[in-house]
């Protein structure tokens, strides 16, 4: 799965979660830039991403993802080891 595909998938998940089809995520997007993406929505987002991709992030990773790109690269890295 390419980084582009992963970003698209993450966008789709966040759109579903926040019910906002105008959301467009890029590798550089940070949480405060998206309206409604508060810490509560972030936990829900992580739960949905883990379920959707069949992955499990470390607690430290979840706490330190600085932007969407960091999440995408981590998912890519997990997939590469499979």
């Amino acid at each position, binding site marked *: 799965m390419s980084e582009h595909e992963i970003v698209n998938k993450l966008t789709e998940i966040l759109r579903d979660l926040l019910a906002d089809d105008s959301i467009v995520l890029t590798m550089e997007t940070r949480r405060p830039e998206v309206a409604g993406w508060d810490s*509560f929505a972030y936990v829900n987002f992580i*739960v*949905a991403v883990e379920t959707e991709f069949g992955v499990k992030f470390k607690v430290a990773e979840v706490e330190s993802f600085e932007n969407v790109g960091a999440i995408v690269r981590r998912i890519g890295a997990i997939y590469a080891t499979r």
Partner: protein
Amino acid sequence: MLAQHRLSFLETIQLDRAIDNHRTEPDQKIPKIRLAVLASATVDHLAPSIRVAGLRRRLLFDLHVGPYGQYRQQLLEPESSLQRFNPQIVLFSLSARELVATVPVNATADEAETAVHRHAEGLRLLWQRAREAFRSTVVQQTFLNVADPLFGSYDRLAGGAPSRMIARLNERVAEAAREDGILLLDVARASERGGLDVWFDVTRWLQAKMEIAPQAAPLYGDLLVRVIAAQRGLAKKCLVLDLDNTLWGGVIGDDGLEGIVLGEGTGTGEAHLALQRYAKQLRDRGVILAVCSKNEPAAAEAAFRQHPEMLLKRSDFATFVANWDDKAANLRRIAEQLNIGMESLVFVDDNPAERARIRESLPMVAVPEMPADPAYYVRCLADAGYFESVAFTAEDSRRAEQYSANASRDAFLESSQTMDEFLKGLEMSVNFGPFQKVDLARIAQLIGKTNQFNPTTRRHSLDDVARFMAVDGSLTLQFRLVDRFGDNGLVSAMILLPDPSFSDVMEIDTWVMSCRVFGRQLEREAMNIAVDAARQMGVRTLRADYIPTPKNDVVSSLYPSLGFRPSQKVDFNGGSTTWVLHLSEYYPHSTYIARRPGAA
């Protein structure tokens, strides 16, 4: 379809929002229930699941989720948001961590027991506080046993082992719940069935202090709403079973008595037997059993009489319908015979076509999606939670017996030439008196579950009922109807409260009667009795409301038929009517029911 499908966490959030967006007008038909969740961990993520699970059972929830860990302040402070919310139900969703943290692992068994006891007593004070402040129903969630093994198997023996402490706390809380009459939400048990890993995810705990994992949220919502629905009389009442390939393997009409697969010896035979055993257990706890099968009636009945491995007996079924008619028509017939609503039925059939037919034509009937392998029949039925209950009374354990007595009554009715001859021949008598403490659980159950003969549909909890008994100048009456075919049990209850302004006026706050005894003149004799008792208290006037609901049409003309007159007060909005009876104008109705005063 929604009622059958298990949703994921994300789907639940989406659905919850979609429903919220479409609900611009408040839905009049669905009652809105104010539920407060008081928690020592994060529970915000459970809210969508609770609301969605509610809708599946036609219950609309208005939720108040208290600030994390502040449940004590919320309960005690007079100006808190909880006080303003004024919940009808308070759910305590607490973690056992607080208890475990206070007890060292080298504590003796006695020390641990003392700590458990103290913790449970603390909970009871919270329950009491919630009841006093809001008169609310209290639900206590059992404690997820999230403790990791410390000694290993020896944990069960070591006094201060965390897992043992949590297990003891759950036992103690269950005892206290029974004593105090509060409801339990047993997530601990559910986590044993589904696996603790489904319910508890340590990363969510660390990230967001969620003790219930988001993945378990949909199931959590469902379990909670089952309990609340059960308390409101919305649980199912009757299990309708197909025969061929459901209660036994094979087709009795083709394979014959020797050909069907049932009983010890083969796995398949034991699986069908297990379903029979489970159905029998349900019957013994008060669920009505019925058969709905496409079969020759003689062959179907013979299977029950002649097959040596048959656990269920023909007499275990309150009604037995075997014919070649459409099953939807037969289910209607069954509900009619038993005098219960279609929404009280659960239809179990191995045939997907029959299930689809019922779902389409009778969407109010619950139709579990039976698995292809009979091995999972019981599991499927049990996990659906159709027959959730919040009490188990003597009436429940006698119900099956009472329904088979009804069959004898029906036969007697058919052989009687006139209604008078039937009623006279029943040799009925009524035991009556004020509410008895020992009967309170049954009375609360009757008030909670009765939808038809219930002119006001006011749902009073056991607490409320006890409170009414203590009101100065109140009158409570319970009625038990006995006839030559048996004891119908405690079938009617009445609560009359004094008018605050006029000392000689009483109002019938609540009057309920089980549908099992409709048409037996009990309402007339009960009114005779109530009028006599009211007169002795110096009452001159009885007042009563009729508040129409989709289900209580049967009592729409109850009061005029008993001699009440319409009052001036008319509520044009809800269609409610108020009725008045001047006792000086009342002449007792003649009935065929003999009176037996005393403990009912």
